């Protein structure tokens, strides 16, 4: 007697088996950026070219003559990830090849701050690239300086106690979405199936695709290495980092309804938040609740809007991002 079962535990992860990240790379133990790249290449497969500006990954990929990825990588200057990727896309187009994904893979510094103008320019031109910002919420590679991705209250070497960062984190996905690109999304290393699905969806769309990937950084967050995935999950389950996607700047889809655990569950595991007073924590708690109300309002508005007007037919190719 034997019973045929397609999958024997529906709760198991189902991910592509092929790995294009190699062992021996130079990421710190427990690095979320390394895990993120591993998952990204699982999703995109071998027909991918990766563009890496100055960021942790410029180091992780290995010193000359070593190379950690099973796909071609172009290492470029700090502020040029998006335009370099666009250049590669143009070169591929000249060769008549449209089966290769071009992945710009930059940190939060190279995206939120230093690479921002070139990213905005490439996005405005709707360059056909996938841009993933792996966000560890500070310049970790150079020694934990604050970036505009650093959240309120976090310790960094440039926001030491008691002068912790007073500003909130820049909302990068909404800024990119407001460029009206076909696809902008958030993702987390703790939700690998969601991340892989989003990359595969991005690959199927023409135009600029932006994915904001939240990752843990044991060295910079002052957290335990083994908790990297756990903390990333808590960022989502406390509501601090919502998982959602935006199509054409309008249609918001919330991908995961969090358990809304108390934010302290997330904060207490990271030394960078150790100094927070109950007042600070309460501000974070109320901010998370407010951001969620805002996100839900946007999702509701997007679903009630009629589709945008179609462009004149002769221009439809050039502005295809407006959708049909």
């Amino acid at each position, binding site marked *: *007697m*034997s*019973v*045929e*079962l397609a999958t*024997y*535990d529906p*709760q*198991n*992860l189902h*991910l592509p088996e092929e*790995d294009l*990240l*190699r*062992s*021996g*790379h*130079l*990421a*710190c*133990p*427990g*690095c*979320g950026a*390394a*895990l993120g790249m*591993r998952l990204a290449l699982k999703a995109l497969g071998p027909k991918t070219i990766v563009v890496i500006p100055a960021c942790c990954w410029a180091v992780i*990929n*290995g010193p*000359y*003559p*070593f*190379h*950690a990825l099973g796909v071609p990588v172009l290492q470029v200057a700090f502020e040029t990830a998006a335009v370099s990727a666009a250049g590669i896309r143009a070169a591929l187009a000249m060769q008549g090849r449209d089966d290769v994904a071009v992945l710009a893979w930059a940190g939060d510094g190279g995206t939120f701050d230093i690479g921002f103008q070139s990213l905005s320019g490439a996005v405005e031109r709707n360059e056909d690239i996938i841009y993933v910002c792996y966000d560890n919420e500070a310049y970790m590679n150079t020694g934990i300086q604050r970036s505009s991705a650093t959240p309120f209250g976090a310790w960094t070497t440039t926001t030491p106690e008691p002068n912790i960062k007073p500003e909130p984190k820049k909302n990068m996905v909404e800024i990119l979405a407001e460029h009206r690109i076909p696809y902008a999304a958030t993702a987390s290393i*703790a939700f*690998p199936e969601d991340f892989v699905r989003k990359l595969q969806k991005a690959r199927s769309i023409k135009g600029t695709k932006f994915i904001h990937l939240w990752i843990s950084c*044991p060295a910079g967050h002052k957290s*335990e*290495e*083994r*908790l*990297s*995935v*756990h903390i990333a*999950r808590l960022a989502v389950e406390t509501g601090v980092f919502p998982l959602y996607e935006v199509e054409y700047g309008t249609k918001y889809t919330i991908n995961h309804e969090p358990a809304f655990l108390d934010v302290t569950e997330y904060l207490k595991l990271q030394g960078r938040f150790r100094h927070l007073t109950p007042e600070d924590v309460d501000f974070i708690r109320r901010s998370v609740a407010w951001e969620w109300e805002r996100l839900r309002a946007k999702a509701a508005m997007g679903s009630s809007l009629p589709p945008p007007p179609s462009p004149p037919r002769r221009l439809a190719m050039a502005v295809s991002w407006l959708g049909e």
Partner: protein
Amino acid sequence: MASELRLEDLSYVPFSEKPTTAIKTGTWKYVEPFYQNALPPCAAACPAGNDISYGLLLLAKGQVVEAARWWRRRNPIPATLGRVCPHPCENPCNREPLGGAIAVSMVERFLGDVEGDVVPQPAPPTGKKVAVVGSGPAGLAAAYNLRLAGHEVRVFDDKPAPGGYLRTGIPEYRLPRPVLDREVQMIARLGVVFQQGVRVGRDVSFEELRASHDAVILALGFHKSRALGIPGEDHPHVYNGVKLLEQLLAGERPSLPPRMTVVGGGNTAMDVARSLLRVGVSPVVVYRRTRAEMPAIAAEVEDALAEGIPFEFLAAPVRVVMENGAIVGLECQRMQLGEPDASGRRRPVPVPGSEFVVPCQGVVTALGEVVDLEGLPADLGTGDARQASTLLGVFVAGDMADGAGTVTAAVGSGIRVASVVDAFLKSGGLPVQAPTVQELWPRQVSLRRKVEFSNLNTAYFRPLPRPEIHHLSPELRRGSFAEVVQGWDVEAAVQEARRCLACGTCNECSNCLYFCPDVAIHRVDGGFVIDREHCKGCGICVQECPRSALELREVTR
């Protein structure tokens, strides 16, 4: 213009092409993960040592026959145990807060009923002979395991058919006889010889038995009832519960009074009361403590109540009330609960002047049983830590050894004594103590590490409700010995096995593999290997294992 750009034309561009696998990042670590299955709480609580989670894992994969064979590796009567065991495994089940404990007994019953190639092959003959006295659960388990070890086993029993108390004391509505017969036949087919109707000490002398065998195991069980010790007890309508049950279960239908009082709160009392109900007698149960202190299996009490059997709690019999030589009632004294006694239960204390009469025409006593050692040496003892008696080569098992009083504990006792006897027959020596049933597992498990709920990564589990277990409606039970609990089909059993969290038991879910930032875990046949040259020792695999099947240890260099 060059038609094609070649790599050597790019010599001025730094170009890396050697894989980083040449960099041995494994030297960075000071702790490292390793796969180590741990003890699930269910198996830790199983007196018979069933390796529950691994059996459920096989079943969850759809490997039904493999799962059934795994279950029968040492336990010869899973179909029986699935029906009669009070399943202590379900109490500590980590699934409890996530939809309810796994219905292990229902799965065990299903696996026990699986036909096919489910019995392991015996080892080559050793030429050693073992006599097992008693064919109850302990005797069956000892015989089965010693036969599988290659010894020649003969079972002696004074009853007409094997099974001991399973046959004479457990009614068919809990254990249909074809189920028991099939499991006994499976043991017999292995080559175990059953000599029924032979009472050691009467039909064959104990010394003769000892002389003709290399080892003797005594597993006589508790069949002799304790007396009530009250006036009027010698009336013919005051019955010994064990004997009455044996008669009823053998199909005899003696003429019984219409209303009878059953005295006791154990399984025998429940079995007697529920059997009487089925032969047309109205029983009432009298017990000196409350429902909470009853030693009977909770489900049996629930079933008795569902069948409408009245209970008189906190009542102790004082005398049998007679009029003109006929019983008209049982006079009882009201009790109240005092301080806890040696068993941990609160001791009943009489309330003075509270006597009252429970009207009835007959009384059945079910006050617990003791061993009947008639015809055996009086100084055998009850066995030491190795279940060895005071005589060399003579061992004890089951209730005789520990008085645990459940079929499951008796099976465990039989398994343990078989291991001791096997060692004795092979080496002539005895171990310091009998191994625990868990120590006899063939699969390598860290027995010192029991998996508690807090050891699980519950992010990977969502609540799934425990399925309903269907009972025959109480109206249909009167006048019928049909099985009360309805069994499951293969689909239901597999679904339930898939609900198991597999605590401490790697089920190859691949979380460790997928979450490794260093791609240092690889799939191999039957599990995973860790690439120690590249593992940096972050421990994410240990943390993200849903079921605590990995551990971290310090690296020794």
